[in-house]
């Protein structure tokens, strides 16, 4: 029976929160893999075709994240990398270049998730888009 894969209930409920809100959110598992992003994240990343494969999405690093002054943000310094890697909360303002070629200004808050017993089960990021189409 150990062969049956089962996500921790805290991660299940985190994902269902992301499913049920109109706030852009994505969810990472304990190994640091992205396991869910909602439609609102997709829109913010300029992904318009619905069937985008989650394994292709990977990291925000694919979207040229930069500080507001244009300095590129190294991948380990991205909020979701801090939440999954260091298991610490992180918050940052940045710009990203969407798949549609539009650079958008975002605020990102990422935080680690610990199950009831205290075990690390994954992380969530919440996004706020600050403007529509600055370039």
């Amino acid at each position, binding site marked *: 029976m150990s062969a049956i894969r089962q996500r921790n209930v805290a991660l299940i409920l985190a994902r269902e929160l992301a499913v049920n809100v109109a706030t852009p959110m994505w969810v990472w598992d304990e190994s640091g893999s992205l396991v869910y992003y909602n439609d609102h994240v997709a829109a913010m990343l300029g992904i318009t075709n619905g069937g985008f494969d989650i394994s292709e999405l990977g990291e925000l690093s694919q979207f040229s994240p930069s500080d507001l002054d244009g300095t590129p943000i190294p991948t380990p310094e991205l909020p979701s990398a801090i939440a999954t890697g260091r298991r610490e909360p992180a918050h940052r303002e940045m710009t990203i270049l969407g798949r549609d070629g539009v650079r958008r200004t975002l605020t990102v808050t990422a935080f680690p998730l610990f199950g009831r017993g*205290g075990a690390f089960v994954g992380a969530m990021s919440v996004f706020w888009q600050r403007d529509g189409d600055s370039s």
Partner: protein
Amino acid sequence: MKIRIWGCRGSLAAPGPSTVKYGGNTSSVEVRLEDGSLIVLDAGTGIRDLGRHIAAGEPVKKINLFLSHLHLDHVEGIGFFSALWNPDIELHVWGPPSPLRSLQDRIATLMSPPLFPVHLADVPCRPIYHDVPEEEFMIGDARIHVAPVAHRNATVGFRIEENGRSFAYIPDHEPALGIDLERVEPEWVSGFSVAHGADVLFHDSQYTEDEYPDHRAWGHSSVAHTVLFGQMTKVKDLVLFHHDPAHSDEQLELHRKRAKELWGGNNGAPELAYEGMEIELKG
């Protein structure tokens, strides 16, 4: 293993003429393994009669009490469990872990004045407390798998496997909260690993489909959710458990009728849990 129900009522004990057939005691289930090892699932009011039954039978040296969670209906009988008053019994109590307070501390809150006249520290038995581990563990020849499940407050489901037969116990569970059970992948369904392919599943079915919308996020399932969960986990026998205290015997029989309609097939499942129900799983 042999399974016997001593209490299957949810939320609050509900004795009286309208609940005589299925019983008014809250959750407590006895599991006897092939080698005679005794596991008790939950310590609702049903555990009092179980304790008397144990005391009247062959002397028992060791009992493993598995607590699915610490809601009152699952622990309120513990002070009336004969084993707690017998210094010759080695009582192991297993429950969901908390990084804030030990299992012993949490139970001691219940077992202390003014809620109870005696402090837990003053009972003759010296229970040994265990946080349920994330990895499987053994009791006798039985393999125990535990997983946290969706309910209010820390709650786990138990799966007991012995000689190729399996019994799953998830008395309080709302796997359908915010989730379309018909569309989601199994690994994203709370309780899936506990129930998957079990010979017998005891599962929360507190509400009717009509009642559920007013009780969403209360941590329980409708009859329809229970059937769907039983189907998707491919259990062989589904037993509707944790009857709402407001539901009479007659109402429960309507729930069974509805559950059978939804289940389809001819194998007899689902059934209603009742006090005294016995199930034997032979290897």
